[in-house]
């Protein structure tokens, strides 16, 4: 087992050790990324990345997020990962490049979408006569129309928020969708506030009947 802080070893160094040693096992990572705090694992087989998962994503989007952890904690546990299904076929250098390019893209796109928790509505005004959309953009339009945010769509499609943000920005620029509200991403995690007591509602019903 190899364990430590990413202050002592950079993630590149840890990856290099696993790759050159042709190790198999699970690299657990926990720390801060530009997208928030992330917790997940990358699975290696003979030094090559085989699969990855975070609390939200699986496969390549999970690697992209985990490789952007700059400060935090790592632990490598050697184990047999042969029963795990391969979801990633890119080499480690390619994955590092991909995660770096995603973070560059995010730097450009983050100022163009006000928040990944924004709710959009479909617009019927000012749409150009002819537009060409990708299958993913059609999928995103449908999900935006159902009130999902960029973050929720990314989770549903197992894409990064960067990929979805790019498409949403294009749809906003084409005036196909427009922002209407911002959702609180922690709303589901907040303990539901206690509502009115049942007895109050019952008394209110009786009071209304008498009005």
């Amino acid at each position: 087992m190899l364990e430590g802080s990413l202050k002592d070893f950079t993630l590149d160094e840890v990856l290099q050790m696993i790759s050159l040693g042709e190790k198999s096992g699970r690299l657990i990572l926990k720390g801060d990324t530009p997208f928030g705090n992330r917790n997940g694992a990358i699975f290696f087989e003979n030094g090559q990345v085989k699969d990855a998962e975070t609390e939200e994503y699986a496969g390549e989007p999970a690697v992209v997020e985990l490789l952007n952890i700059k400060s935090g904690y790592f632990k490598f546990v050697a184990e047999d990962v042969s029963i795990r299904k391969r979801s990633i076929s890119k080499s480690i250098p390619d994955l590092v490049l991909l995660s770096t390019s995603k973070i560059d893209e995010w730097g450009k796109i983050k100022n163009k979408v006000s928040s990944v928790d924004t709710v959009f509505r479909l617009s019927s005004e000012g749409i150009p006569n002819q537009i060409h959309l990708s299958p993913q953009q059609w999928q995103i339009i449908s999900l935006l129309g159902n009130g999902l945010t960029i973050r929720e769509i990314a989770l549903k499609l197992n894409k990064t928020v960067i990929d979805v943000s790019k498409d949403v920005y294009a749809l906003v620029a084409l005036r196909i969708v427009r922002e209407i509200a911002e959702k609180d991403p922690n709303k589901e995690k907040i303990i539901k506030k206690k509502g009115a007591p049942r007895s109050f509602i019952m008394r209110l019903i009786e009071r209304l009947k008498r009005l």
Partner: protein
Amino acid sequence: MKRYKIVISGPFAAGKTTFIKTITEIAPIDTEAKTTATDESVVKDSTTVAMDFGRISVDDENVLHIFGTPGQFRFNYMWSILGKDALGIIVIVDSGARETFEDAKDMINFFRVKTDAPAVIALNHFDEKGNKVDKNEIRKILNLPNWIPVVDCNARDKQSVKDVLLYLLRLILSRD
């Protein structure tokens, strides 16, 4: 004194102020101002800019406050403020005002993401005649999920307003 809150929302001129005036036990407090937008002034002379307020006292210790939101999207900062900690939301839609249905959809989506409170759509029939939609049509137009009910309503009729409130209260009880 414990105060509980129900929020009445809906597009411009849907009947929110009328709904509250019909049921409140005190003289309603409203914050109407003269409409300035040309297309709005054709519909009515004044509009709610902050909130309407009504009240139903239940006993010596408990009271229900009824807040009406402004209808226009530009006042949506008030929707958040008023929707916070509400027991439930009633979104009033004028069955004959098709031009407002898109706004109603925005409002429903807004409250769906801003609050967990149960919501009811009150389909207000101001005019007996005219090109009105029924409950099934409005459900399709607003793309409503099954768990948001639509009830018919006449905001000028006290029994009808009571029925909408009772429907919402029973929905709140069923969600507990």
